[in-house]
């Protein structure tokens, strides 16, 4: 089957075109490096089947990161395919550098110019036929949102032809290096490697095995300051092309916006960032989120669930079936579903931040602060996504160019309290702290960050990240598209719900079975019989005595390993209650009960112990086996240690009342976080920058 590759700079709209043409659902966003791996789908164009491939964005044909290497490998290994160079019309000047590099290799290149309407608004008018003549390849305007996309794309593909190599290649005298290198590599890579040799990059040849004895000769092929000469030639060519095809230039050539003056201003940038985060947090977890949550709880548990139970009782259904539906379907799954609105709100805000282009600015603002911890500014995106779901956040780290920064980010994400833990916090903290529960939840989020920062500093001392990403490109600020927002949110919610109906439902059934059957598998009919769950949990429970947990709490924690949502549904099943009654049952003497001290210890343990199975499986793909198991043990040790410490301190201080106590907890965590940050700044004062600089010079 013939192949078509979508190639272009990052954020040019390749994935959006791919999705429109193939009906796929590849993640898109206003952010550089959203696509981290190739996506392939079949596509019927001009009555012929093609294999359409969406490649990660590149700036040139020399890879700088793992995802760029994927693109370069695909281009070089499939030189007989059609390459659609997707160009953002707003970014034409910089994009043509890649176009020229594709043309230099004599590939079948066509250019799809995207965002033409946007560029017209900025005052840039491009003469497409002049651009086509200057480049020597077919150029077509390809507005993503128009209905003619498929028709135009088909037209573009039908006109694809092998392009003539540009004349300036003669100035580089490539015959000699190409002839030499052609003996040791596939002929299709010879030209590419020849240009590399002229640039002076003899260590950077593609699939080329030069005998050791001849390697010293390679340097002789390099031009004097070859990279500069080659870059200058391409830049001059781009300037010539632009002179021919630009009818008018941008009124504001620096692409600045009024908002950027606030977002990037040295005085307003940080307060604006903090305000945005606070607003998001307040709306999601404050009055609005609570209101929606209660409404959903009423609908699912009281209205639907209650109605179903009444109906079953009227139909004289067996007691065990009524118990099963009440405790598993309504109690277990329904109580987690009631928190769906908060999860939707969190995903909505994260999507808005991503699609508006604010995240790239945020990455820049935090680059310096995060580099102290061996992280990259871009890590903030993955870490923020971690507040939504660790499983979805971990793959986003693939955009980090620095391997160690990536590993550190991946290991820190589980410490960011994911949305699945929120129902647990809300129910347990709500039971003990009433109005102060918001403060306790906020304190838990801060504690997760504090532990993550501390670990990052320790790791930075043991395994220093020697360099970080130094250049961040700010994507244009764009109004998020309503349809795209809905699409991405639905996708995330679908994942969230599908987990409830698969893993969560299965595990809730197991909990129910273990709780309602004895070890000899007899249905429990009186209180004297001991359930399977009780037997197992009682065996492990003594280990958790220093944290004040009973066997019920231990049992809930075990199922939390499968999915964090299960902690609450497990408690609901164990205590034999449904919906919002879970909170009340934690105080009034059921199987899972807490004192204020053990409640806080339980919350701390929930926050810090191992993430769910799906997140762990993602993690396993990225880190080595040794690091993986070490990490799980470390998380358990931290959770156990801090949980025991919390229990001890709260037990000693004594419980002084809901809201006041919540303030005390919140203030304590804030003080810990401030002290920690000050200490880190003090430690890094004279070391970090110089260390990184030394490494940079050594390279």
């Amino acid at each position, binding site marked *: 089957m013939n192949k078509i590759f979508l190639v272009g700079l990052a954020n040019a709209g390749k994935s959006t075109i791919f999705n429109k043409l193939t009906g796929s659902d590849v993640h898109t966003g206003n952010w550089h490096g959203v696509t981290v791996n190739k996506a392939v789908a079949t596509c019927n164009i001009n009555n012929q089947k093609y294999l359409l491939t969406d490649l990660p964005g590149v*700036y*040139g044909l*020399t890879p*700088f990161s793992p995802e760029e290497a994927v693109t370069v490998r695909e281009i070089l290994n499939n030189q007989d395919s059609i390459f659609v160079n997707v160009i953002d019309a*707003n*970014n*034409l*000047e*910089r994009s043509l*550098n890649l176009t020229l590099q594709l043309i230099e290799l004599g590939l079948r290149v066509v250019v799809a110019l995207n965002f033409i309407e946007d560029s017209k608004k900025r005052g840039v008018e491009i003469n497409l036929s002049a651009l086509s003549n200057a480049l020597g390849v077919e150029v077509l305007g390809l507005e993503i949102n128009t209905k003619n996309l498929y028709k135009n794309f088909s037209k573009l593909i039908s006109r694809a032809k092998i392009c003539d190599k540009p004349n300036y290649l003669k100035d580089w005298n490539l015959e000699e290096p190409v002839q030499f290198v052609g003996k040791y590599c596939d002929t299709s890579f010879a030209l590419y490697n020849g240009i590399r040799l002229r*640039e*002076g*990059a003899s260590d*950077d040849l593609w699939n080329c095995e030069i005998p050791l004895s001849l390697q010293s000769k390679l340097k002789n092929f390099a031009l004097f300051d070859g*990279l*500069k000469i080659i*870059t*200058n030639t391409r*830049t001059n060519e781009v300037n010539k092309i632009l002179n021919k095809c630009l009818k008018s230039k*941008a009124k504001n*050539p*620096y*692409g*600045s916006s009024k908002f*950027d*003056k606030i977002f*990037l*201003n*040295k005085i307003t*940038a940080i307060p604006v960032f903090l305000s945005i985060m606070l607003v998001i947090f307040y709306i999601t977890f404050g009055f609005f989120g609570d209101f929606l949550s209660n409404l959903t709880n009423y609908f699912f548990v009281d209205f639907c669930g209650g109605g179903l139970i009444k109906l079953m009782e009227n139909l004289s259904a067996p007691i065990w079936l009524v118990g099963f539906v009440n405790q598993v379907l309504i109690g277990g799954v329904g109580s987690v579903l009631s928190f769906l609105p908060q999860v939707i709100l969190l995903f909505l805000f994260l999507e808005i931040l991503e699609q508006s282009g604010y995240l790239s600015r945020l990455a*820049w*603002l935090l*680059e*310096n602060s995060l580099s102290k911890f061996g992280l990259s500014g871009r890590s903030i995106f993955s870490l923020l996504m971690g507040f939504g779901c660790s499983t979805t956040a971990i793959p986003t780290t693939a955009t980090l160019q620095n391997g160690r920064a990536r590993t550190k980010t991946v290991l820190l994400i589980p410490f960011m309290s994911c949305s699945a833990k929120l129902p647990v916090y809300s129910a347990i903290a709500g039971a003990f702290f009433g109005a102060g529960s918001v403060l306790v939840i906020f304190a838990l989020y801060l504690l997760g960050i504090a532990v993550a920062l501390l670990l990052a500093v320790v790791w930075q001392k043991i395994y220093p990240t020697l360099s*970080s*990403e*130094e*250049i*961040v*490109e*700010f994507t244009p600020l764009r109004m998020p598209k309503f349809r795209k927002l809905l699409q991405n949110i639905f996708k995330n919610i679908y994942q969230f719900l599908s987990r409830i109906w698969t893993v969560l439902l299965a595990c809730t059934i197991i909990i129910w079975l273990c709780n309602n059957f004895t070890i000899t598998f007899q249905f429990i009919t009186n209180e004297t019989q001991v359930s399977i769950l009780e037997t197992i949990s009682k065996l492990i429970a003594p280990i958790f005595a220093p944290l004040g947990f009973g066997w019920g709490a231990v049992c809930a924690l075990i199922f939390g390993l499968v999915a964090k949502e299960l902690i609450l549904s497990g408690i609901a099943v164990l205590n034999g209650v449904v919906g919002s009654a879970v909170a009340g049952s934690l105080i009034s003497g059921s199987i899972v009960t807490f004192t204020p001290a053990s409640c806080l210890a339980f919350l701390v343990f929930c926050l810090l112990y191992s993430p769910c199975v799906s997140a762990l499986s993602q993690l396993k793909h990225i880190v080595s086996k040794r690091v993986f198991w070490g990490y799980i043990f470390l998380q358990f040790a931290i959770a156990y240690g801090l949980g025991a410490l919390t229990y001890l301190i709260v037990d000693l201080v004594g419980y002084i009342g809901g809201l006041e106590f919540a303030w005390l907890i919140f203030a304590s965590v804030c003080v810990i976080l401030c002290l920690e940050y000050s200490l880190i700044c003090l430690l890094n004062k004279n070391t970090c*920058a110089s260390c*990184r*600089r030394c490494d*940079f010079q050594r*390279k």
Partner: protein
Amino acid sequence: MKLTETKQGQKVKIVDVNAPLFLRRRIFELGFSPSTVVFVYAMQRKGIGGVYAVRGAVLGVDKKIAKNILVEPI
């Protein structure tokens, strides 16, 4: 002069980049190629570096990279 020595609102022209080959190529590809005009766009906060408009794009450049980009005023 170095790019870090420029002031906000100033326009300068790139002369060269002092960096290892792979990084130098990357900086060139991102738009900081010789003879390109750069507009110093936003903050030059201590430790962070600067925000520069180059070839129609706005880029944030770390201080330790920016000090290796040599420019001349225009």
